[in-house]
């Protein structure tokens, strides 16, 4: 139970960053941290004590394997996380070239 609560604390740290930081790079970092906590909680739910990694040995039978379904979900989510982070970086560098700052409040004031 402690592990789940610690995972949620990591999620809250990321949410705190998204709410309070004003730097675009810091916001991207906070979003990545939220993603990491979600991956970890998905894999923790599927873990089984003394289970094997989900690769079947064709010779033997009747083993305990950990749940492959949350792992498959997290696998696709990790690659999507890379794509979204890279796209956020593209937006950030483009805004920096135009406004010479990463501050989101300044960017909102300097519209146009």
């Amino acid at each position: 139970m402690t592990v789940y609560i610690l995972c949620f604390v990591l999620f809250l740290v990321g949410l705190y960053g998204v709410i309070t930081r004003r730097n675009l790079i810091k916001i991207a970092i906070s979003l990545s941290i939220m993603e990491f906590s979600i991956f970890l909680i998905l894999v923790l739910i599927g873990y089984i004590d003394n289970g094997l990694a989900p690769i079947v040995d064709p010779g033997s039978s009747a083993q305990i394997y950990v749940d492959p379904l949350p792992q498959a979900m997290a696998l696709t989510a990790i690659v999507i996380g890379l794509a979204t982070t890279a796209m956020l970086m593209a937006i950030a560098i483009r805004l920096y070239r135009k406004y010479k700052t990463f501050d989101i409040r300044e960017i909102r004031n300097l519209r146009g």
Partner: protein
Amino acid sequence: MEGMSTIVKKVTQLMVGPVFLYGIYIILHGHLTPGGGFAGGAIIAGAFILLLLAFGNNVINLKKEVAGSSNTESIAILIVVVMALMSLLFGAKVFFFNFLPKGEPGELLSAGMIPLYNIFIGIEVAGAILTIFLSLVIFKEESSK
């Protein structure tokens, strides 16, 4: 972006080949060992990024390169969709049906369509990551001029 020193270039020359081969191994053995199309594609893109960082971008034509990688990923994802549609023609009329013979579990040539999907998803992932990275490099070059 300038290239790095001679030592870095030499070590990169020695290392890039094994990294690339490891990516291909991860993709081809995706149904037998840990890994698969996503991991292998990311490793192959990493090999290209290593080469670009070490040698600088004066040795290649960036515009041609980004057109090539973007076309490659488009064609790869098109082939994945076509392979999924092929199962509507052959076998049961189900999208993403695995209609090739399964073979002996544990052999390299087994599991029907899964190795083919792995290969093309790997090419798609490598192309996408490389496209994003190359467009960032081109943006930096054009704005620093």
